[in-house]
């Protein structure tokens, strides 16, 4: 089945003309038709447009176009937070109404230039706010390993689609763990690049100093390929960094002998599930077998990460989401004056979690509280970043669990926002520090069988070393090959 292949696997078959892009695309659409009723990874997909792109890719393949275009004919689906020209964009919210994107996000332009078939709108927590994909106006997404459980979030659709072989790869966005956490819970590879590595132009902003776009893939080699395509300086995003894009795949040598991996003692918290801990301990032993040196390190301000995050992220969100006011786009609820129109439109259009964060963010920025909350949080952010920079003076990467537990039950945390926020405890600091991180499969819980994710955190712009380490581990294990029974049938 072509939908089960990796990018590298499918690209090889396409290059040899053993199969066509149309067959590959059709195979993904068939899988969606078969399993997405149970998983609901997709909000929508435009099959006619996808097949037209596949036909165009086949014409290019016939001319040998694959030599210059690494994703030619590869079906890639995107999170509903990225603009794709002439396709709907809703951010999992009611407030955008019947919005159709007038332009492509930079990452979408780059995917198309690399030959990818860009299709589908993947479900997400509304405006990327959440850790379970239960906060979507378009219904919940379910975990392909156990449909009574959440797939993680906010990019739950992006993770579930890859885990269920509905797409060859997908894109998501990560503000506090929204790529790595669902990748861990669904058993795929999820990469959050360094802040500034990938242009955010055409990504609907949640927290502008933390947001970063990244890939979900079936293995680390594919993550390297995707990162190479989407990275690079973009004059349209003033925070994208003018730094050359290396050949990430070239760094996947399998050799990590002598590299130093840091194990932060602060991550062995009380809430860490014993099976998750055992899987991560085993992964650390595996790294030692591969010749890496394990060093205990300290990230002393770890415990303040969640507090800092929920001040900075909500403050930035309250400002960013001011644009959804019913004037220039999206749904509108009329009022007697502009203020009433804004207020009614926003009250009707936003869901509960988005309202909660707008209120919190407005409060921490409001007169009299700015210094106590926002400014203090920005200062503690400096301390957290310094913890990491200090650690990287002695280690090449840091190893942690991605999440404290495997996927939890649907509804289990939806009434307790603080408990939900604490499920991001291992992923949040990476965004605050602006470094890169990846989650890769490192085992399963026994009963029920649910994926466990290993998080590797790399230096700023250290994606080559990060992917090299992740790849060496992956190639020495079989975890990434396992599929849920429901997906395989």
């Amino acid at each position, binding site marked *: 089945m072509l939908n089960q292949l990796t990018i590298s696997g499918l690209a090889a078959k396409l290059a040899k003309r053993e199969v066509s892009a149309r067959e590959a695309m059709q195979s993904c659409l068939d899988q969606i038709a078969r399993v997405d009723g149970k998983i609901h990874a997709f909000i929508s997909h435009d099959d006619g447009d996808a097949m037209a792109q596949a036909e165009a890719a086949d014409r290019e393949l016939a001319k040998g176009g694959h030599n210059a275009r690494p994703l030619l004919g590869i079906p890639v689906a995107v999170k509903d937070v990225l603009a794709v020209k002439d396709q709907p964009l809703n951010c999992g919210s009611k407030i955008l109404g*019947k919005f*159709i994107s*007038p*332009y492509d996000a930079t990452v979408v332009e780059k995917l198309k230039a690399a030959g990818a078939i860009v299709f589908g709108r993947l479900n997400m927590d509304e405006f990327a706010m959440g850790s379970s994909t239960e906060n979507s106006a378009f219904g919940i997404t379910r975990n392909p390993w156990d449909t009574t459980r959440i797939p993680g979030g906010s990019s739950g659709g992006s993770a579930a689609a890859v885990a269920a072989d509905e797409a060859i790869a997908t894109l998501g966005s990560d503000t506090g763990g929204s790529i790595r956490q669902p990748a861990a819970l669904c058993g795929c590879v999820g990469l959050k690049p360094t*802040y*500034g590595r990938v242009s955010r132009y055409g990504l609907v902003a949640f927290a*502008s*100093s933390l947001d970063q776009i990244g890939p979900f893939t079936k293995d680390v080699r594919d993550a390297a390929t995707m990162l190479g395509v989407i990275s690079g300086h973009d*004059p349209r995003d*003033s*925070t994208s960094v003018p730094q050359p894009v290396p050949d990430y795949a070239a760094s996947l040598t399998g050799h990590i002998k002598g590299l130093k991996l840091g194990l932060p003692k602060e991550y062995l918290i009380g809430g860490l599930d014993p099976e998750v801990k055992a899987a991560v301990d085993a992964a650390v032993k595996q790294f030692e077998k591969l010749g890496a040196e394990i060093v205990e390190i300290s990230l002393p301000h770890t*415990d*303040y990460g969640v*507090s*800092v995050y929920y*001040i900075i992220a909500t403050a930035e969100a*309250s400002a960013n989401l001011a644009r959804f006011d*019913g*004037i*220039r*786009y*999206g*749904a*509108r609820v*009329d*009022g*007697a*004056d*502009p*203020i*009433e*129109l*804004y*207020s009614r439109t*926003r009250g*009707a259009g*936003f869901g*509960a979690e988005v*309202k*909660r964060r*707008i*209120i*919190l963010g*407005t*409060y921490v920025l*409001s007169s009299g509280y700015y210094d106590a909350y926002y400014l*203090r*949080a*920005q*200062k*503690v*952010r*400096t*301390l957290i*970043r310094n913890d990491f920079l200090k650690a990287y003076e002695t280690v090449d990467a840091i190893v942690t669990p991605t999440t404290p537990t495997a996927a939890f039950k649907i509804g289990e945390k939806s009434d307790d*926002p*603080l408990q939900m926020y604490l499920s991001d405890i291992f992923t949040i600091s990476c965004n*605050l520090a*602006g470094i890169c991180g990846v989650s890769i499969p490192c085992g399963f819980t026994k009963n029920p069988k649910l994926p466990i994710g290993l998080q590797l955190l790399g230096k*700023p712009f250290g994606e080559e070393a990060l992917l090299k380490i992740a790849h060496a581990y992956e190639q020495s294990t079989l975890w990434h090959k396992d599929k849920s029974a429901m997906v395989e049938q």
Partner: protein
Amino acid sequence: MSVPQFDVKYVAHLARLHLAPDEEIKLGAQLGGILGYIEKLKELDVANVEPTAHAVPLVNVTRPDEVRPSLPHDDALRNAPAQANGLFMVPKIVE
């Protein structure tokens, strides 16, 4: 741990966000809990720490001041909930 007085109605007005009475009560209670948790930041001495606005050391990023193509007028209006004569329609602002 003391939690500051939290006036949901006032903050909702600042945010131009209409809340139903039951939403006000639920949000007030939940945010009280979250603010209580956040109080732990006060344990730290940050007197001599510089704030981090974002993690990339870029300042004053500019581009040449040149005319270049931008979103066509019709495309910018395409998603408007109400428009007329090539403009966004809004409620009356000035009497």
